[in-house]
């Protein structure tokens, strides 16, 4: 059996989801989503460079339901990833590495990112 064909013991099926692990994987997911958003960012800039027809086409896609969902998703991803990133930077200095702080900052992160996303979305 080669390396990649060995059986694994169950992990995701049995491990209880917790705030720590859920926020951590969300950080990774939002990061990956933003990576894809980078391609759309470039597409946006080039549509502006190319001319009015291209730009208008882009705006029409953006105004569609799919476009709005993607945009909202990316906005949330950016804000969540940024806030959690700051939380990580704080941990890198050694601060707040205890269960109470982690859970407390976790709640701040959840409510903060949802609130800021909604705030920006509805005021811009």
């Amino acid at each position, binding site marked *: 059996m080669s390396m990649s064909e060995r059986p694994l013991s169950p992990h995701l099926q049995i491990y209880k989801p917790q705030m720590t692990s859920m926020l951590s994987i969300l950080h990774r997911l939002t990061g*990956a989503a933003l990576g894809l958003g*980078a*391609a759309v960012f470039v597409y946006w800039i080039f549509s*502006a*460079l190319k001319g009015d027809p291209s730009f208008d086409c882009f705006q029409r896609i953006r105004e569609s339901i799919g476009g709005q969902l993607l945009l909202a998703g990316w906005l949330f991803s950016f804000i969540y990833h940024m806030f959690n990133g700051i939380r990580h930077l704080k941990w890198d200095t050694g601060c707040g590495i205890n269960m109470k702080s982690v859970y407390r900052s976790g709640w701040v992160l959840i409510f903060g990112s949802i609130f800021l996303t909604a705030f*920006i979305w509805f005021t811009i």
Partner: protein
Amino acid sequence: MTDTKTSSSFQSPLARARGLGSSKTGTQAWWVLRLTSIPLIPLFIYFLTQSEYIFTKDRDILLKWIQEPISAIALIIFIICSFYHANLGMQEIIEDYISSKGRKIFALILNKFFFFSLGIAALYAILAISFGKV
């Protein structure tokens, strides 16, 4: 064999060259990931204040805004930092989930090329707009 280096590294020169040890060349990646993330925070705040020019549906307004030196410079720094950060972040994901060495190296190279070429393209567009190729 005589090694005249007086460095205190416990690794043999060959091990260092191969990037052995579980972190391989990881410490630099860890640090640069943090470093590139920091400018993005004030830049995001700045872009928020400029949102009416960024999210406009009027192409001329957007172009005029990009042509302002401050916005162009902010965009350039943003692009360089975020694309480098994205490359390193995706690199961690690839290293974690792709175990076959050949496929991992292929994915890592593809990843680097993806963000590198997109980044260069984005920088080109900003400069083209700034210097009036509009």
